[in-house]
């Protein structure tokens, strides 16, 4: 019990004093890169506080296990589809999981997939942004679940949206970090050079979502009713 209290106090201290101080000193210290620093800190804090929230609210072991299996499936997908360049089922699995298990589960699946698959593909400064990107795609999918279940057109639109959002999140930070302001020409160059990848990415999202939503959705629905999750 005392340990719990100490931990709680430490978390409070970190969130009220240490982190604001660190962010402020970084803001003063890093000159032109201060905006990149702020965005990086905000992203890390957002993901961390979402995990804390998850820790407080999610209680059913079954749901945790569903999230773990979906995360594992999307990481394995990244491995087994590696021979076909650009085809990754991560987004599709995150979105499907979010549609049937809610926005929070979607965020966790996306963020965890990024974290764990980077253990195999290489961590980097991009890891927090990947976690945030995939997480937020899952979160929105959870919020829009009813509409995504119904219309194929909306599903395709979401595949496009998630592909564009993902590369947007990654590129904006790169540009801000390199230039210290939103340099349009560098952003255009980055987006253009990433365009083939983004295109393959969008197509693979659409393919996986269209093929996968029905059968996987059926399985998830069944698991949900069978085990009362």
């Amino acid at each position, binding site marked *: *019990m005392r340990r719990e209290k100490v931990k709680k106090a430490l978390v409070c201290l970190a969130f009220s004093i240490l982190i604001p101080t660190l962010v402020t000193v970084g803001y003063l210290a890093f000159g032109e*890169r201060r905006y990149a*620093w702020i965005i990086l800190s905000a992203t890390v804090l957002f993901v961390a506080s979402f995990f804390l929230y*998850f820790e407080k609210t999610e209680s059913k072991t079954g749901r945790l296990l569903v999230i773990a299996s979906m995360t594992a499936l999307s*990481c*394995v997908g990244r491995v087994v589809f590696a021979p076909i360049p650009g085809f990754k089922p991560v987004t599709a699995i995150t979105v499907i999981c979010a549609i049937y298990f809610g926005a929070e589960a979607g965020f966790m699946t996306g963020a965890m997939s990024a974290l*764990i698959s980077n253990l195999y593909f290489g961590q980097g400064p991009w890891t927090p942004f990947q976690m945030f990107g995939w997480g937020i795609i899952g979160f929105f999918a959870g919020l829009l679940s009813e509409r995504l279940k119904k219309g194929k057109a909306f599903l395709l639109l979401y595949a496009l949206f998630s592909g564009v959002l993902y590369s947007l999140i990654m590129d904006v930070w790169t540009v801000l970090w390199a*230039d210290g302001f939103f340099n349009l020409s560098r952003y255009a160059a980055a987006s253009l050079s990433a365009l083939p990848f983004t295109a393959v990415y969008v197509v693979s999202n659409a393919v996986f979502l269209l093929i996968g939503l029905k059968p996987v959705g059926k399985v998830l629905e069944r698991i949900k009713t*069978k*085990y009362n999750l």
Partner: protein
Amino acid sequence: MKAFKNFHPVSLAVYFLSVLTVLMFTKNPVLQAEALVGAALFLGALQGVGTLLSDAPFYLALFAMTALTNPLFSHNGVTPLFFMNGNPVTLEALLYGVSLAATVIGALILCRCFCDVMTSDKILYLAMAASPKFSLVLSMALRFIPMLVKRFHRVERAQRTMGLYSGKSVSDRVKFHVRVFLSMIPWTLENAMETSASMRARGYGKYIKRAEKIKNGKNVKNVKCEKKKRTNFSLFKFTPRDAALIFVCLLSFGISLLGEAFFSVGFEYYPRLGALRLTAWSAAVYAVFGAVTFMPFLIEVKEALVWKYCVSKI
């Protein structure tokens, strides 16, 4: 021998985060050079000089590309070298490109060291301290991955034998892969549900009633239900050495940040190249940060020498 790996995971995390943050956000060439060279030597010590040399062309190409393209995006600076399409290509932008390239490559190399040193058990340990549920998901997923890859190949082999797996075009390959992949999903989820039932049966996450305390021979009435503390498996011990590493890292991080903010460690490329000023504070920053960046390499070398010496004595 991988001596640096033997530090406590918390110390290692502090080390990598502090060095990476300074490396990525500073523009001071001395700090950048220290971090880049230190990280490269560290990677060489971890994975052998061969790996470093075989990766060198990639890094050099990336370096050249980043450094040379920067003047195309940025026209700041007061010293134009020549004009291209009516836009000035400035000396400052070129030098800023070099600094940017050094940072990018330093960060990449340091992250590879991170992957080599911070194995999944260490990340799991760190997660466990922060959040048990998050770490449960993490550990489960880490265990599922090799299992699922094995299963994937089992199903794939079975389908290949049945003659269902023959196409060579991309669309066929995608189709077959997707079919095998989809067949794994119900299998995995049912399996996970069995695991969860088994965990519930063994009391995972249940409140455990503490034995009633006996005070002065009387039973105390109001017994609180408390969550029994979940233990975790770890082989890591926090020693004074680890505390020392954390202290040095935080010290270097702190004085670098304060130096950048207030004490002339900062460096500007635009509009005019700044000058490196050598003050007591900046000298201290260079010395401490240099010590921190070269420490892993020195530890590895020392350990290798000790190993060699011991072997030769036998």
